[in-house]
């Protein structure tokens, strides 16, 4: 077989029919679930703006508040995306968030350590916890569900060991950081939490799509056996994604601490499920291999929008939010199955 030279390949791609075909496959292929999520998000906003015309629903600040209020969840969902892309799962996200808030609040408020040192320490502890879980999962071949479940119990327990009740933050640096308002055109503003979430998202997008590590993550999700046979560094990739998830959980914990100004052993209870729901709504398959972090951002925004809409309704009791989130999850999954990416594996 004659090998195509570089010039021949480029000549083919320059042809207008080829470019149109690649554009169509972008719509049909893996991008479709994210586009569905995005269009449903826009549809919800439009519906909300018609219904709550007089309540300033469509004002810029209400929409930006979505990001401000849920910045920590965006960071957690980004970390969860990395793990889920490799076909794993991380149930310890919420507990590491709670543990980070307790550890930081305790060290800063009770032991009077310098705030910046504690922040660095908390991030390091989160990353180390993730790395440890990843190592156990890989080298001892135990299911990620079980290992991260044990991590959930362990870190939730450690929260209680630090203190049974909440510890409020009385450090100037932490309090000031929480109140910073970054002004945007139009009189709106963003918080440090929201900006961090966007920064983390951009870094994650860069890593996943433009670095070798990102390729390895997708490959591992596509098939561990194949990756091994191809010679990819499976151990490093696997431990790497759990380390990233642990780091993101710790960062999310810090952002949550800024938001609530207190460490509480119950913080983050059940948050891993919100993160996983956001990732799933965002179009990432739980079997791994396909998905975009941008989808996870949209997933978090959709969840936040549901809560905003419920608060705008005013008359509904809070547990309706739970029911709506469940229904929404169902709708998104059904739509993804109808239009979504072709899955070559057998469904679980």
């Amino acid at each position, binding site marked *: 077989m004659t090998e195509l030279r570089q010039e021949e390949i480029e000549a083919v791609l320059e042809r207008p029919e080829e470019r149109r075909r690649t554009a169509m496959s972008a719509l049909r292929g893996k991008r479709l679930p994210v586009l569905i999520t995005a269009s449903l998000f826009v549809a919800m906003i439009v519906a909300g703006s018609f219904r709550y015309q007089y309540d300033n629903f469509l004002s810029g600040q209400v929409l930006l508040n979505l990001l401000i209020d849920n910045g920590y969840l965006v960071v957690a969902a980004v970390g969860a995306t990395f793990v889920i892309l490799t076909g794993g799962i991380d149930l310890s996200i919420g507990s590491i968030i709670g543990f980070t808030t307790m550890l930081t609040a305790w060290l800063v408020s009770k032991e009077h350590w310098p705030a910046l040192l504690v922040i660095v320490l908390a991030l390091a502890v989160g990353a180390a916890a993730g790395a440890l879980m990843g190592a156990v999962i890989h080298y*001892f071949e*135990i299911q990620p569900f*079980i290992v991260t479940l044990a991590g959930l119990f362990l870190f939730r*327990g450690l929260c209680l060991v630090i203190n049974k009740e909440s510890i409020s933050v009385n450090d100037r640096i932490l309090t000031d950081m929480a109140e910073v308002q970054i002004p945007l055109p139009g009189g709106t503003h963003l918080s440090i939490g929201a900006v961090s979430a966007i920064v983390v998202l951009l870094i994650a997008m860069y890593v996943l799509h433009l670095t070798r590590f990102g390729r390895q993550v997708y490959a591992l999700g596509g098939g561990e056996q194949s990756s091994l046979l191809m010679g990819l560094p499976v151990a490093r990739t696997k431990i790497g994604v759990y380390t990233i998830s642990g780091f993101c959980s710790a960062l999310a914990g810090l952002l949550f601490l800024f938001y609530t100004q207190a460490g509480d052993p119950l913080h983050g209870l059940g948050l891993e499920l919100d993160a996983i729901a956001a990732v799933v709504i965002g179009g990432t398959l739980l079997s791994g291999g396909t998905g975009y972090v941008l989808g996870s951002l949209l997933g978090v925004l959709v969840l936040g929008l549901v809560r905003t809409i419920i608060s705008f309704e005013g008359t509904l009791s809070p*547990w309706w939010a739970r*029911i709506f989130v469940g229904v929404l*999850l169902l709708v998104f999954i*059904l739509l993804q199955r109808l239009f979504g990416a072709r899955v070559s594996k057998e469904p679980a």
Partner: protein
Amino acid sequence: MTKNRFFWPVLVLLGLVALNLAKNGFSFLTIHLTHGHLYGPLVSIAIYAAPLVLVSLGMTVVIATGGIDLSVGAVVAVAGALACLHVSVQHDENSVAGTLVAVAMALGAALVLGRWNGFLVSRVGIQPIVATLILMVAGRGVAQLITNGQTITLNSRTYSFIDGGFLLGVPFSVLIAAAVVGLTALLIRRTALGLLIESVGGNPVASRLVGINARRIKWMVYTFSGLCAGIAGLMISSQVTAADSNNAGMFIELDAILAVVIGGTSLMGGRFSLGGTVLGAVIIQTLTTTIYSIGVPTQSTMVFKAVVVIIVCLIQSPAFRAKVFRRRRTLGPPPPGQLAQPAPVQPAAVEVPQP
């Protein structure tokens, strides 16, 4: 003997019992008969373990088909909420008829919720984690809706019989659990059902080629899991004669999955062990009781539980045992068990020789 898959779980159980004996002496093992009822620490463990045994039972068959059921906690809450709501609006909270209707309502709802899960997984083809996650989130909302966010407290001797009553000296809830376990074991092991379930989870492709109706099997196991969760929900709400929709059944799905794993069933599906699951549930309950009885401060109970669970799972993992208790490598080929990769076997393309 160490190759027997029950070896390590039984060892852990004996270790926990030994801890209790060391701390509290032989009174831990004594059972006495008072007013025609059996009492004792072991009996208490059995009573508290009964709901978990039931939920774990349902979880076992679901996991055996390669799925998982995260919604059992929500079903427990809904069942308890419905039953307590019905009894609370009766004129006489002690009426047997009222309680029976409440039980029927709760079990009916649990069956419907289980069927819904089965529908999503088998007909619509959604991944089990996601399908049951939907009910886990929405179901708890429904339970809170039923009780309006409050805790419904009852004052019914009849209703509290479900968990607190005794029949022929044995606690009623233990009898129910034993009956369900016995019936299930009979159905599964004496008929082809067990084989079909193991086959659907162990090798979906081969099962389909052999002609097994995986859809019906999956539908059945999720309905069964819902039913078990409903019975457990009745027991749990009867234990406190109240329905707390916010907290009832919280985390029970995690305990159930742990019990199944400790009992030796793989999360990937396939071969399962009902006896192992019962053993696993008893271990988890004994662990909880041991933690309290040996005086671990309440703050550290969760960490203690996490450490024991980690140890059990590590010991059960063959890779861990191989790496830590490294045996001297022989020059011959390694034993076949160690090479077995749990990868799904694709049916090989067979070349039919042309005549």
